[in-house]
């Protein structure tokens, strides 16, 4: 094999691709600008909406409790709620988003308390509606505090200390380091993103250098040269791989940079990380990704990118036209995504069998590595098995390129 020919084909394909607006758009512009803008734009918009909903005073209504005006008075005293007077059709009012939540009390609520009965307070809300959810949460917190006050008053009246009903305090504290939290939160999402980016990054170049060449009539011109078929395949394949890796690197880099800027803006910069934006939610806690884990992910991604590039090259080569190639590769995206989605499901852990399942193994291993967990034997199986699959896919590409019925299928 002549390496000079491989490089000549690659250099020509690269020059050709850099002059093609469609390739530039799909490989450079979309991953660098569009995907981060869309991701963080959507995330930012969502965060803004949530923050806005959270900042607004929940609109609530108290229905019943005619003999317990102190409930409404306590609620009003807090100043956290906008209380609307009770009126009929409160369920419809919640559905119409006029009221966020309604506190339903029996008409003789205070009397029942005095008699030692256990009256029921019910909070009505609209499941799935953000503002209604916030209103219900706040209302529930108020009712719990109110109940605590009632208990304290009752105990005090009977000369009993509060510890009679609360013998000990309960607290919850996170012991997971930030990178573990980040790994668990983002471990499923990052490989999903990488798989999508690797696949889409390879798609257009693969189509252009195969079905595109057939369509434009340049394939036969190239075959007239003394370059061996395997040299042509490798040169073209390297371009597809470059497209795949470039697209992924640009997208991840751009998303990382956007996340860092967003994180810096949100948390004053000190704790901002790739994982910072959005992942911390409203808790003020910023999860991180283990940097070594990220490196490990990138090492495992390389053979996957080779596998995708070779497969997409082979499939696109079979097609007569770019349109036909797109119709093959488009649906394949869904097939490729399935293992990544399965990997995100809780309860599925890496084992020897799953370490041989392509893509699913990457997904599961990424989750672990980003959490700082390194199962070396599994990682070795994943790396070498994926390399083997990638080599098989590349061999298939060469074989297909040598088939006259494929190469002259126009």
């Amino acid at each position: 094999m002549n390496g000079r020919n491989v490089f000549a084909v690659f250099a020509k394909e690269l020059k050709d691709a850099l002059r093609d607006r469609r390739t530039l758009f799909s490989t450079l512009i979309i991953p660098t600008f569009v995907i981060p803008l869309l991701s963080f734009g959507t995330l930012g918009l969502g965060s803004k909406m949530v923050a806005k909903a959270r900042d607004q005073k929940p609109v609530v209504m108290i229905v019943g409790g005619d003999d317990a005006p102190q409930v409404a008075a306590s609620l009003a005293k807090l100043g956290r709620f906008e209380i609307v007077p009770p009126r009929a059709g409160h369920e419809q009012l919640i559905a119409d988003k006029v009221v966020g939540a309604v506190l339903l009390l029996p008409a003789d609520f205070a009397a029942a308390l005095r008699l030692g009965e256990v009256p029921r307070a019910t909070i009505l809300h609209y499941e799935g509606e953000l503002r209604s959810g916030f209103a219900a949460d706040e209302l529930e917190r108020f009712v719990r505090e109110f109940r605590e006050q009632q208990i304290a008053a009752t105990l005090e009246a009977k000369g009993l200390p509060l510890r009679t009903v609360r013998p000990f305090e309960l607290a919850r504290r996170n012991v997971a380091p930030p990178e573990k939290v980040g790994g668990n939160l983002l471990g499923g999402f990052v490989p999903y993103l990488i798989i999508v980016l690797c696949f889409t990054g390879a798609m257009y170049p693969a189509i252009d250098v195969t079905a595109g060449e057939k369509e434009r009539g340049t394939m036969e011109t190239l075959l007239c040269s003394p370059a061996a078929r395997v040299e042509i395949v490798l040169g073209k394949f390297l371009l597809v791989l470059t497209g795949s890796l470039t697209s992924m690197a640009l997208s991840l880099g751009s998303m990382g940079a956007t996340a860092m800027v967003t994180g810096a803006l949100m948390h004053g910069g000190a704790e901002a990380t790739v994982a910072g934006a959005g992942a911390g939610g409203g808790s003020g806690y910023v999860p991180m990704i283990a940097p070594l884990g990220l490196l490990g992910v990138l090492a495992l991604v390389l053979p996957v990118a080779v596998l995708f590039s070779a497969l997409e090259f082979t499939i696109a080569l079979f097609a007569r036209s770019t349109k036909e190639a797109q119709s093959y590769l488009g649906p394949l995206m869904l097939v490729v995504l399935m293992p990544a989605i399965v990997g995100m499901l809780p309860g599925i852990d890496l084992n020897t069998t799953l370490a041989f399942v392509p893509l699913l193994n990457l997904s599961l291993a990424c989750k672990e590595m980003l959490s700082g967990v390194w199962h070396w034997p599994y990682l070795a199986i994943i790396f070498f098995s994926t390399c083997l699959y990638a080599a098989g896919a590349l061999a298939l590409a060469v074989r297909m390129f040598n088939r006259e019925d494929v190469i002259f299928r126009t």
Partner: protein
Amino acid sequence: MIEARHLSKTFADRKRGTIHAVQDVSFQVEPGQIYGLLGANGAGKTTTLRLLATLLRPSSGTAVIGGHDVGTAPEAVRRQVGFLAASTALYGRLTAREMIAYFGRLHGLAEPEIAQRTTRLAAELEMDDFLDRRCDSLSTGMKQKTSIARTLIHDPAVMIFDEPTLGLDVMAARAVLRFVRDCRARGKTVIYSTHVMSEVEKVCDRVGIIHGGRLLAEGTLAELAARTGQRDMEEIFVQLVTAEVAA
């Protein structure tokens, strides 16, 4: 030199079964000679030439080009061949100069040599005005000149032309025919396929008439005329094909 020895090519087609595109074709072309392969559309001309250019592998038989067998040394064969066909298009996003240089590199030429040969070819083919323009912006004639330069960059001993004037206007077609004659004058072995009778009369030293994948007859124009009793190339062709169909 080109020597086709009992070349055959079959294709499997799901609808039509086995197609015998080329059957037992043998001929020989000497250096400094233009061999015309004359046939109607679908006669087997392109398949024969693709076999010679090693784009396809023979089902049986073989061909030897410049001492190399198409079956066992395809790369060595392609190093000696310049193949120009209506189906060999140019890369639209490359300039004419880049296109020529790319094929120079694939033929193993060094960069200074490529530059030197490109300059010479551009002068010979009057390409200086558009040498640095992208191929997708060139006229049909300019494209054909670029294709010719692409086939000549490695100075091949054998030239294979598959209907090179297809779709060209009169002036561009004349330029191509002039170039084909130049190749003969330079001692190259030339094979020229066409279905245009007048082109055969103008440029070919020997003619092979192909029909249904079979070589029906071959010889000089005078030999074919004597054999059929016809003087006009079209009449010669029609008589030979009609006789074959009747048989």
